[in-house]
């Protein structure tokens, strides 16, 4: 039994002299939410296009649901639901008409198509009034939701989501995250392409970071963060700082050092705890402080993010990449 829904083996894609994807191998297990991270031009879109069967690789093989995409492209296309980065809908049709069109492309018709459209309109929380209006009148968030619904019509097992929240405000972004989480709970295999580190970190089981056509890091977000061995700081504001307290904290496994700092601006004393595993040791820190009879006024945790991992691996930030483009 094949447990991987997506298997990419030594894929390379050349455009004349430019190598867009360079000998990439990876796999995505059934039911896994796999994040593909990287700046613009890293090769994510080319890899996604090859996975969706839009373009062929120069060398290497891709299997989706156990089928080789080059040999069984139609079968693979039926297994795949692709949500493109841009809103790819017909402006002059309403949501129902758009979904009916894309449903027919996947061979749905009659009552089955109608029922599926209604299910998806409910799932994407589009009200009846909105459904009757042309797409051109929708907000960005509504368009994004229909864009996703169009890829779900044929109930695909594997989903490719290409920057699904691009250009959305925080509210709509969170709403879309909920939709993605629901799909994940339904055991869909999801490959999420994004350049938003928090999105990848929040949603993905595993993440691959791509740069210059290659995968430069692969693992769960926590694994990747641990791998870079960067120091985190836990900043505690207790009601009083004693040497007994500092001693107790220093004894906690994983704490590299701790020290008191007087904040001139706030006129308060804070306790700084330096560690590589801030999230892991935080409960122990809190217990130790309570054990010495001290109350905690506030705790702040500055932790390493995937953004930090990316900077460490590539020497530049994703935001800089965006600004340059």
């Amino acid at each position, binding site marked *: 039994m094949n447990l991987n829904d997506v298997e990419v083996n030594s894929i390379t894609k050349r455009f004349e002299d430019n190598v867009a994807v360079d000998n990439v191998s990876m796999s995505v297990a059934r039911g896994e939410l796999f994040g593909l991270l990287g700046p613009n031009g890293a090769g994510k879109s080319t890899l996604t*296009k090859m996975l*969706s*069967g*839009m*373009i062929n690789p120069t060398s290497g093989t891709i299997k989706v649901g156990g089928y080789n995409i080059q040999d069984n492209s*139609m079968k693979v*296309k*039926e297994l*795949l639901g*692709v949500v*493109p980065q*841009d809103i*790819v*809908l*017909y402006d*002059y*049709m309403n949501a129902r*008409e758009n979904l*009916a*069109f*894309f449903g*027919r*492309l*996947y*061979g749905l*018709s009659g009552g089955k198509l109608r029922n599926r459209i209604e299910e998806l309109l409910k799932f994407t929380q589009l009200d009846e009034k909105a459904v009757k209006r*042309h797409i051109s009148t929708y907000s960005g968030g509504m368009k994004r939701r229909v864009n996703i619904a*169009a890829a779900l019509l044929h109930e695909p097992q594997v989903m490719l989501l290409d920057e699904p929240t691009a250009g959305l405000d925080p509210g709509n972004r969170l709403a879309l995250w909920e939709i993605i989480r629901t799909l994940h709970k339904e055991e869909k295999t999801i490959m999420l392409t994004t350049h938003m580190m928090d999105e990848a970190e929040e949603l993905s089981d595993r993440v691959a970071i791509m740069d210059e056509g290659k995968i430069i890091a692969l693992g769960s977000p926590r694994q990747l963060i641990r791998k870079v061995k960067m120091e985190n700081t836990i900043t505690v504001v207790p009601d009083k700082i004693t040497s007994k307290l500092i001693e107790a904290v220093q004894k906690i496994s994983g704490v590299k050092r701790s020290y008191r700092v007087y904040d001139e601006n706030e006129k308060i004393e804070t306790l700084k705890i330096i560690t590589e595993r801030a999230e892991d040791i935080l409960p122990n820190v809190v217990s130790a402080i309570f054990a010495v009879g001290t109350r905690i006024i506030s705790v702040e945790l500055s932790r390493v993010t995937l953004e930090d991992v990316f900077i460490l691996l590539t020497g530049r930030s994703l935001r800089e990449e965006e600004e340059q483009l």
Partner: protein
Amino acid sequence: MKPKRTIHQVFAIAKTDFLGIVRNKTAIFFTLLFPLFFLIIIGFTFGTQGTGETSRIRVGTVNLDGNKIYVNGTVSQDSTIGNVFVQVLKDANFTVYEYGVYGDKDSNGTAAYDISRGQIKIAVVIPANFTEALSYQYTDSSGIPIPTKARLDLYTDPSDPTGSIIAQQSMFGFISEFIKNYQEFAIDQLPEDLQDYARVLADPITISPSEADVSGRQLRWIDYMVPSTLGLVLLWSGLNHASVAIATERTKGTFQRMVIAPVSPITVLAGKLVSSLAIVYLSAVIMLASGLLLFQVNLYWNIPAIVLAVFLGALSAIGIGLIISSLSKNEEAANSIAVLISVPLQFFIGAFFPLDIMPEPAQIFGEALPFTKLVNAMQGIMTKNLPFEAVMPEIIYMTTSGLILFALGLIAYQLSLKRL
């Protein structure tokens, strides 16, 4: 490939494409109604002119008949036939303006001045010896009539070739009929022994009718125009729509979304072909129905022949459109190229002007276009009631060019798939 599913896909693509036209006011105008716009403008301008109606032709007359001349050594001022000519012209329903002199373009109140300003389409100058020549008053010393030509001078505006041709043709027909009738009358006035002689001499003005009425019906300009507009339909509805059909989908990304679904690129193309043909036929129906309703065109309706000829012509138009659509970078570029091609071409297919009035290179170019062949075939079938076999050369030409251009379009489409 499942045939039923493929048919559903083809019709889904065609329906979506068709809705894109009918729900977009600009697209409706430029794709479906632009040829109609031309038909209405030109139809109301020239449409009712032709062999049957003359009231919209404004004719200026300069009647010099009655001016003093010498005939057989004596002064004559006979203006009888000149006056009759002008009166009959009015009776024939021409709009007649009378002038004292022909003049020149700078002298207000003269015929030349009004031609230069478009007030009249044609000026007829009746010579001083018009009556004397037509009534055989020139004789030798023994009283035998000497053949003497009366020359009618016609002046038209060279800057308006179409209007000039129409006015000239109408005047030629009128003069020919007039001379024939009045010559007979004049000959009858001669002594009986000279009448046969006069008939042999009779060649007073060498003007012959411009066209034979081969259809057996009286046709107007609009009757020729409406079948010709089917050529415009191919350019505006066929070529223009096909040019943007794929390019628009590619620009919006919907083409890419279609090919990542289990839909073959050929199915997408078939959907576009169906919608393009539907738009061509819808536009053709609008044109022909408008001709019937607005201008009461007097045509022969060989529907199967019309449907087949339009289909064959549409193959060429869609083939060219497919090449443009596939090779263009985006929708905007495709649209510009299509307009750049279709706008000049419409003047070379014989829809607005007869190719005969064009310079020879333009005629050769025009004759090479499959759209011109459609115009020729449609005029033959719809105005002259020619049998289908009679337009077979045009049909064969359109079939050949249609297949070649469509094949080239297919190659361009295949190449465009590599650019996704």
